[in-house]
């Protein structure tokens, strides 16, 4: 989005709130400005979190269109909630909590059924492969595509919560405590979810070594 304000502060800043110094992440600062009616701050949040959120949702539901629809709904809910927003947690925790909730509901509703059916059929329309300058041979491309399909299948086969935990841990590099807050469970439950998920993935992808 053109003309958006660039972040003026580092990710974490110390903000004096009513005499007490509280650590407040910059995203939460932006969200507080949105609460005060600043549309540019919402655009800045959107600019920053749009790609990671869509990618997270895409890996959750494995359908590009559904992922964008869910991301739109997540941002819409953030905007709707601006009036009552309180920075009690990291902004990303809140955002991913909304998104995960939407994704789990979508998966539960069976909205991804068509995607699951197509998973075995399609491979060419997935924009996952980055085109490199050195053009790979047809054979290399096919091998790579087959590998990616296998990874996608392995991730899709994980139980929903395990999948969400792995995606946040691997791609968002979230800490256990943050994942726990997003999934509304204990930190030890997250560790258990992750361990079981990686155990399954190791078993399914071991032959790739």
């Amino acid at each position, binding site marked *: *989005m053109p003309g958006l304000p660039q972040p003026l502060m580092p990710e974490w800043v110390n903000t004096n709130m009513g005499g007490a110094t509280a650590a407040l992440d910059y995203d939460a600062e932006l969200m507080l400005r949105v609460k005060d009616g600043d549309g540019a701050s919402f*655009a800045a949040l*959107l600019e920053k979190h*749009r*790609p990671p959120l*869509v*990618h*997270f949702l*895409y*890996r959750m539901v494995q359908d*590009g269109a559904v*992922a*964008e629809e869910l*991301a*739109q709904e997540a*941002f*819409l809910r953030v*905007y*709707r909630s601006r009036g009552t927003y309180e920075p009690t947690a990291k902004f990303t925790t809140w955002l991913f909590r909304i998104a995960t909730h939407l994704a789990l509901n979508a998966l539960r509703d069976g909205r991804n059924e068509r995607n699951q059916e197509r998973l075995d059929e399609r491979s060419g329309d*997935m*924009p*996952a*492969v*980055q085109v490199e300058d050195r053009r790979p041979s047809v054979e290399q491309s096919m091998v*790579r595509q087959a*590998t*990616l399909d*296998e*990874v*996608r299948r*392995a*991730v899709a086969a994980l139980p929903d919560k395990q999948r969400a935990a*792995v995606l946040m841990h*691997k*791609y968002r*590099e979230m800490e*256990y405590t943050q994942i726990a807050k997003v999934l509304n469970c204990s930190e030890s439950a997250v*560790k*258990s979810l*992750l*361990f079981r998920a*990686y155990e399954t*993935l*190791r078993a399914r*992808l*071991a032959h*790739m*070594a």
Partner: protein
Amino acid sequence: MRCPLETREDREILVAYSAGTLNAGDTEPLEAHVQSCATCREFVRGQRVVWEALDGWEGPPVTADFDRRLLARIEQEVSWWPRMRSRLGPLLIHRALPVTAVAALVVGGVLLERPSPLRVPPSPAVVQADGLQPDQVVRALDEMDVLNQFNHSMKAAAAQPKM
């Protein structure tokens, strides 16, 4: 060092080690252990395979009109109430209010005038709890009076030339 795979609490340290996210203080002793423990070595090897496989799975590019679609949805939502109010507001004031007042008068009149031949006269004990009480009628008439006054003032305001 005790094998991390022996206890549930410690095993995720191997996941962090495999991902390269373990702090330096914990990495050194674990590295020494992994070199001597075949089970942990196999775990780390398998975990790194998973890690690399997941690395190759990139997200799709977000469609160009994502923001435009989102902002259109927000705008639609934000402007829903003012648009509805601006469209229905005059209608509500100029049409609905007089109609409501007239309807209330008619209903009140019917209630007051309606004979009740089939009703058995209530016993003195229940007379206060049953039927329309005089104070209720007075209050309803008062409310209708207020509505009429409001209606008159609205009409007067509407009749005044606008600046």
